[in-house]
């Protein structure tokens, strides 16, 4: 067991854990942040996606030891942002949520994509979501949602980010 200090949704926390414990388990089991989902546990589905220093990662593949000094953003933190509101509005309008199990991961992927590229093309959006599986929607509605959010949230993603 080791102590690890890292940023989580804007706060600095210290946890005592096994160095190889998956970030996903740290979040879900230890910290009870269950918005991040487990769909496969093998890095294939993206349901567990979170931002690590602003980059999209599958938290089932990140060992706790990698967290020291870094910052993690999950849906629990992200849902308080204005960008989330814009995405939420766009997801609602396009019907991008069905069973909802992929949704938190999709939202984090959308944020990662838009902060890199505030004005993506459809191909770029499809590329950006390609690590996140959705079995319900066939993706086009989610792609549309992100294109819509990029338009409606004009300026939100081109500002320096809050990482």
């Amino acid at each position: 067991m080791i102590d690890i200090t890292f940023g989580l949704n804007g706060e600095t926390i210290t946890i005592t854990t096994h160095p190889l414990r998956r970030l996903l388990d740290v979040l879900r089991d230890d910290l009870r942040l269950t918005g991040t989902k487990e769909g496969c546990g093998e890095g294939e589905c993206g349901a567990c996606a979170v931002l690590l220093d602003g980059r999209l990662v599958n938290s089932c593949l990140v060992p706790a030891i990698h967290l020291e000094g870094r910052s993690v953003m999950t849906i629990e933190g992200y849902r308080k942002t204005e960008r989330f509101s814009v995405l939420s509005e766009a997801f609602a309008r396009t019907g991008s949520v069905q069973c909802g199990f992929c949704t938190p991961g999709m939202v984090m992927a959308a944020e990662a994509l838009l902060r890199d590229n505030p004005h993506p093309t459809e191909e770029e959006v499809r590329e950006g979501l390609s690590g996140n599986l959705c079995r319900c929607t066939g993706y086009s509605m989610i792609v549309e949602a992100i294109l819509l959010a990029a338009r409606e949230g004009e300026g939100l993603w081109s500002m320096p980010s809050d990482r």
Partner: protein
Amino acid sequence: MEGISRPIKRFDFDDKMSGTALYCADVTLDGMLYAKTLRSVKARAAILSITVPPLPEGYWIVDANDIPGKNVVPIVSEDQPFFAKGAVKYIGEPILLVVGPDKQTVVDLLERIRVAYEEVRPVLSIAEAEQVRENFIFGDTPYFFAYEYAKGDLSEAAGRAVRVFEDEFETGYQEQAYLETQGIIAVYENGRVTVSGAMQCPYYIRDALIQALGWPEERVRVVQLPTGGGFGGKEEYPSLPAVHAALAAVKTGRPVQLVFDRQEDILCTTKRHPAVIRLRSHVDGNNRIIGREIDIAIDAGAYAGLSGVVLQRMMFAANGVYDVPHLKVRGKAYATNNVVSGAMRGFGGPQAAFAVEMHMENIARALRLDSFAFRQRHFLHTGDTSSTGGLFLHDIKLDEIAAEIDRISGYRNKRTVPRPKGKGKIRGIGCAFFFHGCGFTGSGEESLIKTRVRLRKCPGNTVHIFVSNTEIGQGVLTTLRKIVAQALDVPVETVKQTYPDTDDCPNSGPTVASRTIMIVGKVLLDAALDMKKRWHEKEFEIVRAYEYPGNLRWDNARFQGNAYPEYSWGANVVEVDMDPATCEVTVTGVWAVYDIGTPIDKTIVRGQIEGGIAQGLAYACMEVLTSENGMLRQTNLADYTLPTSLDFPRIEYRLIENPFSDGPFGARGVGELTLIGAAPALALAVQQAVGRGVTRLPVTPESILEMMDRDD
């Protein structure tokens, strides 16, 4: 379109979007224990002994000996145990649970359990099952179910025919691959057990609990939690983990959570049935199909499950949307020692549609006829009878569907443009017509399910819907509210509905068979109209039951009459590019036209269309799932490849206006229809690109290479 079709924000949206919706694995209860399942690693064996390591304090084993009632899953044929006892019949069959407070310790204990098996020669495919003469898996036949039905006089037709065409097709497994794996929590409190989790059919689970526990229904409660997709995979299967978790909760006196990991989920849950379908068509001198024989064999796996019902649906769909006066259809669901096949979106329809659409195309080609026109000439019309002799009472708009699909896709034009020769990709385009029967077979909605709904008017003019239909992503928490609100002419926000709970929701049937809107929605609409008449009263309830329409009839012994209360219809066109060097197929265009009656929320319907088509396309060309020696070879999402956002292009679709007079606001079923036509359309496109007959799904670069090497 009607006002009801106007999209509204889903009632389950905010929770899911913000990650606050609590799915089974997100729930933690005080003192909760975790359970993991020990599963058979043999396809067929006697269990000689099971050696369990010493259990630390607080850890438990739960197995068949803990079942106070019957160790048999209550489903069509009662042949499947909840826990294997003395013998196993497939790899992945549950034997026992290890239960305890620490997940890792539970897993470690599980790995240290030794099972001594004595292997028995397994039956591993349909072909092997056909040869079995002794040591049957089930009773004294190599199959669980064998059916046949006929229409007209086939031998007379055969006598008149001038040409006969024969084809054989084969389809593989498909995994539902809901993104949330199976998960159940059971709590035992005050002599009652409450099971909650991921499910499509709370009352199936309730019945399973009653049977396993031998308890009266008052002691059993089932509650759905937000569910991460079902697609049939959470229809009959969750009865197993539900009973397992409940037994563990009763034994330990603590809440028990049983969540599958992905490998386990793929390995041991139900799949779409592999099928072999043979068709033989008799054609007269006017190039008209006058008779057809169809032979179907499906791999049911080790237990009967729902295979009989799937087989029936496949048989009733096997002649497609065509009017063929003389028919003979036979089907067998074979017992093998493969994983149990079961419900998956389409429920036999996708296999049938693939076979008949390929066959129609092949006949037209052999007759040197335009296959689009050839199929049109055989379309069913209102007033015709179905293959089971049921009169089609409502408007069939196949001609409009055909015209519209051609208009939006340019199919006929593209189809005839010569294929580019030489280097570069080869284009192909395919078109499929299809239908899907909505609701239970025959009069099952009334006789088997006895569908009932309850509506309560509360003080303050809110209305509460009580039904057992589950929200599995398809929008039931929104669409049913819309129907009731519109009928009562009240704001939809004043209509309440929660995830179903058997304590207060009557049995309005399972959430399957594209039945929720058309059947349950209609009963709710009628209940709401009753309520409206008494609207001045402050507080009261309306209970209504489904009534089988008087103009339908069904003889279940002979499979004669209206096989389903009503049908939805559609056409798909798929365009592909095939790389002749690698044999890779890229889908470059997808078009769809449906007649689903009135859409109850156009956005939700769009979700059903786009999601269903993606599953159908992937079934046709991506999702390879094979069994070798009874063991599935693809047991994770790296090997079993689901489509990503990059795999398929946008879909262009249209809905035909054709309100169904017996559906709520004119609606018919939609959920399954959308998956059915994609595979034949894609296969026909590949067939054109390759210039060889596609006979097997899925089509992969390897199978295309094989086709190219074949000289036909």
